[in-house]
C-alpha cells in the first residue's frame, strides 16, 4: 500500500517537473538558463546512470567518458551520414552504449575493484584513439555541425535540447528507482557485499552485472548523444574528457549511492556550483572545487548527503547504522 502511494507521489513529481520544464521553455526568453540548465540535467542523468553500476553493484566504472564519447560520436556519425533526427541519434547512442556495456560487463568476470576501474579507463583511451583516427567524423581536429531547424513548440534549439535532456534525466531516475525497488536491486546489493555468498544464495551474479552494465551504459551514451548538437561541434578530446568520469563519480558519491535521490542531489549541488563558478571565476576552478568537495565528503560524510539526512541509508550504503 505504502509502496503504491510512493509510486503515485513519484510519478506526480515527474509530471510536475516535466510540465515546469516545458512551460519554462515557452515563457523564459533568455537562452542562458537553458544553456546552463542543460549541463546540470546532463550531469543528473550521468550521475544516476553511473550509480546503477558503481553504486548498486559496487563496480566503480571510471569509463563514463568512454560511454559519453561513444554517445556523442554515434550521434555525430549518424547525423553526418544520414541526417537522422535527434530522437534517432539518441536511440542509436543508447543501443551502442548498451553493447559497449555488455563488453564491459564481461570484464567483470575476471576483474574486480581497482582492476576493473583501470580497465574501464583503458577502454576509454582505446575508443578515443580510434575516433581520433576516424576521418569521417573529423578525426582529432573535430567536426563542426549545423543544427537542423528547431521543432515546434520550441523557438530555439537550446531550449529543445534542455527539454530533451530533462526527459533523459527523468528516464535515468525512473529506471534507477525501478531497479532499486525490485529484486534486481537486492541482488546487486548482495553481490556488491559478497559475490560468492550471493551466488550460493541463488543470485545470478553474472546476469545481474551484465544487466547493470548495459542499462548504465545505455543511459550514459544516451545522455551524451545531444551534446554534439548542444555545442554544434565535437572533438575527441572533449567528448572523451576524463572530467565526465570524475564528475559523474564525484556527484554520485557526494550525493550518496544507496538511494536514487543521492546522485540527483549530488549532481544538482555540484552542477550548479560549477556553473556558478564558471561564470564568476573561471571554468578551470571547477575541477579544484570538485576535488575539494569530494575530499570533504569522503572524510566527513562517507555515505554522502543522503547519509547525513537519513541515518537508515548509511546501513544500506555499507556503513554502520
Amino acid at each position, binding site marked *: 500500500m505504502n509502496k503504491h502511494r510512493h509510486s503515485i507521489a513519484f510519478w506526480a513529481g515527474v509530471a510536475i517537473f516535466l510540465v515546469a520544464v516545458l512551460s519554462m521553455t515557452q515563457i523564459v526568453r533568455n537562452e542562458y538558463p537553458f544553456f546552463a540548465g542543460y549541463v546540470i540535467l546532463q550531469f543528473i542523468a550521468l550521475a544516476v546512470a553511473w550509480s546503477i553500476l558503481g553504486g548498486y553493484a559496487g563496480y566503480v566504472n571510471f569509463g563514463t567518458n568512454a560511454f559519453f564519447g561513444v554517445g556523442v560520436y554515434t550521434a555525430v556519425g549518424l547525423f553526418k551520414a544520414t541526417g537522422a533526427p535527434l530522437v534517432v541519434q539518441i536511440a542509436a547512442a543508447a543501443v551502442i552504449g548498451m553493447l559497449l556495456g555488455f563488453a564491459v560487463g564481461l570484464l567483470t568476470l575476471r576483474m574486480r575493484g581497482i582492476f576493473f576501474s583501470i580497465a574501464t579507463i583503458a577502454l576509454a583511451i582505446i575508443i578515443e584513439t580510434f575516433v581520433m583516427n576516424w576521418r569521417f567524423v573529423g578525426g582529432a581536429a573535430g567536426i563542426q555541425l549545423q543544427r537542423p531547424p528547431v521543432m515546434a513548440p520550441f523557438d530555439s534549439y537550446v531550449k529543445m535540447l534542455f527539454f530533451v535532456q530533462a526527459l533523459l534525466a527523468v528516464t535515468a531516475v525512473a529506471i534507477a528507482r525501478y531497479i532499486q525497488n525490485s529484486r534486481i536491486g537486492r541482488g546487486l546489493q548482495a553481490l556488491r557485499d559478497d559475490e*560468492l*555468498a*550471493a551466488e550460493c*544464495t*541463488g543470485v*545470478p551474479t*553474472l546476469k545481474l552485472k551484465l544487466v547493470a552494465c548495459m542499462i548504465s551504459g545505455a543511459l550514459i551514451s544516451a545522455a551524451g548523444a545531444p551534446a554534439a548538437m548542444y555545442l554544434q561541434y565535437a572533438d575527441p578530446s572533449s567528448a572523451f574528457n576524463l572530467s565526465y568520469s570524475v564528475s559523474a563519480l564525484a556527484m554520485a558519491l557526494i550525493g550518496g549511492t*544507496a538511494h536514487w535521490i543521492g546522485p540527483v542531489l549530488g549532481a544538482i549541488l555540484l552542477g550548479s556550483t560549477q556553473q556558478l563558478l564558471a561564470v564568476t571565476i573561471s571554468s578551470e576552478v571547477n575541477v579544484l572545487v570538485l576535488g575539494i568537495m569530494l575530499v570533504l565528503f569522503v572524510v566527513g560524510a562517507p555515505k554522502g548527503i543522503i547519509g547525513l539526512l537519513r541515518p537508515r541509508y548509511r546501513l*544500506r550504503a555499507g556503513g554502520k547504522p
Partner: protein
Amino acid sequence: MTVTAAPDAPLLQVGTLTKTFGGFTALDNISVDIRKGERFGLIGPNGSGKTTLINCISGALRPQVGSVVFCGEDITQLPPHLRARRGIARSFQIPRPFKSMTVLENLMVGLDFAAVGSSLPEEDVAMSILTRMGLASKAGASTDTLSQVELRKMELARALAVRPKLLISDEAMAGLSSSEVDEVLDLLISLGEEDITIIMIEHIMQAVMRFSERVMCLDAGRIIAIGAPAEVMANKRVQEAYLGT
C-alpha cells in the same frame, strides 16, 4: 527439465572427483553417495580437502575430473546460483554476511532468488526462519552488530531461506563456546529431522560424533575412512592422520 530420481536413489552422488590446483592435488578420485535425509559428517586434518570437496558440490569450484549428481541430475557444470535453486545451500567457514543489509534482508536475498513455490509473504517466511534460529529479535539489526554465534546462526538461516534439500555446514561451530556449540548442534539436528540432508564439516569431535549417522575422513585429498562414527574414530589411519605418526 528436471529429472525425477528413483525413490531409493541417493540424493547426492559424487563420482571420481579430482580437483588439482596447479601441481597440487586437493581431491584425488573421491566417490561418495549421500542418502536423502542423512546426517553426514566430514572430517579430516587441515588441508585435507574438506572445503574443496564442498566447494565442488556447491559450485564455487569446478573439478577437473568426475561428476556431481544431485537428485538424479548431473550438475557438475552448473554455476552456484543454479545449484542453490535446485536445493543446495551452504554456510561458509568464515561467515560472509551481506554487510549492508539487515539480518532480515540477508534472508530475503535467498527467498527472492532461490526459494520457489511459497504462497506466504516473503517477510513472514524470513521471520519464521529467524524465530526458529532464535534470531527474531535481531531481524532489523545490521550484521556487524551480531556476535560470533549469531553470525553463524544467521548464515544457517540464510541457507535455509534457499529452502534447501541439502544443507552444507562448513565449520559452523568453529570458535564457539561449548554451550554455543550445543545450541547450534541442536538446531542442525532438528533440521535433519525435517528431511533436510546435512553435510557437516567440523573439527569438534564430540559434535561430529553426536550429530553424524555416517562420517567420512579425508586426508591429503583421499578418503581414508567412511562409516559409522565410532568405527571411523577407531580407525588407525584416522588417528594417525589427526595425531601424526
